[in-house]
């Protein structure tokens, strides 16, 4: 039974993650939206989902399917901000999002720097 459940979870993850990316691709080919704008739209969608409190319910079903796309980054920012605002007062709203997402962003900045030192850009 556990095996079936795992297969089901992974199928759901694949389907939701894939569908989100397919929607983004459709926005690129059908509208004049640039990738940067689409990223911001999905990010704000994640913040709104977390803000109105439905993200957790979706996450329980879709798991990495929604948390790996940028939607999850937005939701994580909003969750951090909300949690810290509730625990330390309104000043926490400005710090919480950064604190919660600092692991990923921090490692991204450091690794980008190291990779830049090690590798040279290649011709496209």
């Amino acid at each position, binding site marked *: 039974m556990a095996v079936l459940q795992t297969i089901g979870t992974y199928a759901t993850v694949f389907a939701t993650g894939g569908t989100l990316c397919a929607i983004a691709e459709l926005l690129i080919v059908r509208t004049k939206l640039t990738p*940067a704008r689409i990223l911001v739209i999905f990010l*704000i969608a994640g*913040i*709104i989902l977390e803000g109105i409190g439905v993200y957790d319910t979706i996450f329980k079903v879709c798991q990495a399917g929604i948390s790996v796309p940028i939607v999850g980054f937005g939701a994580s920012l909003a969750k951090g901000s909300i949690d810290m605002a*509730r625990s330390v007062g309104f000043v926490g709203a400005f710090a919480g999002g950064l604190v919660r*997402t600092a692991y990923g962003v921090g490692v991204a900045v450091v690794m980008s720097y190291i990779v830049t030192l090690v590798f040279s850009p290649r011709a496209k």
Partner: protein
Amino acid sequence: MAEGSNAIKQRNERYNKYVDTVTPKTSIPKALFHSFAVGGTTCVIGQGIGDIIMLISPAMSKDMVANITSMILVTVAILFTGLGFFDVIARQGGAGSFLPITGFANAMASASMEFKTEGLIFGTSVKLFSVVGPVVVNGIVWSSLAGLINLWILGMY
């Protein structure tokens, strides 16, 4: 005068037809399928990393598992960018390669590498956030707002 504008109109029409013939036609279903496959696979890999971390240390909190999972995904994506593998995936994957967190990492690393020639301070350090800046800025602004709204408006009830 009228003849002149007519000639311009005809010329523009000819030009537009020419542009249509030379613009590469992308098959929409194919592009959608590639995005779906690449995006879905990335998410499955993320799920797999999270599950493996939970097997190794079951005592770890769910938040920490999510943090470490995204750190691993980001690190691998940036290494792939440096080695030149990511471009191969991105060419096929389209939105499937930039919407996941790996795309965010790739955008950061490729901007940083591209401006290496302008120096580490004015090239790399300045341009590091040139692509992902909108995401970071909008993320901070709107999530702070979400926190304030939650505290001041939703908190009342």
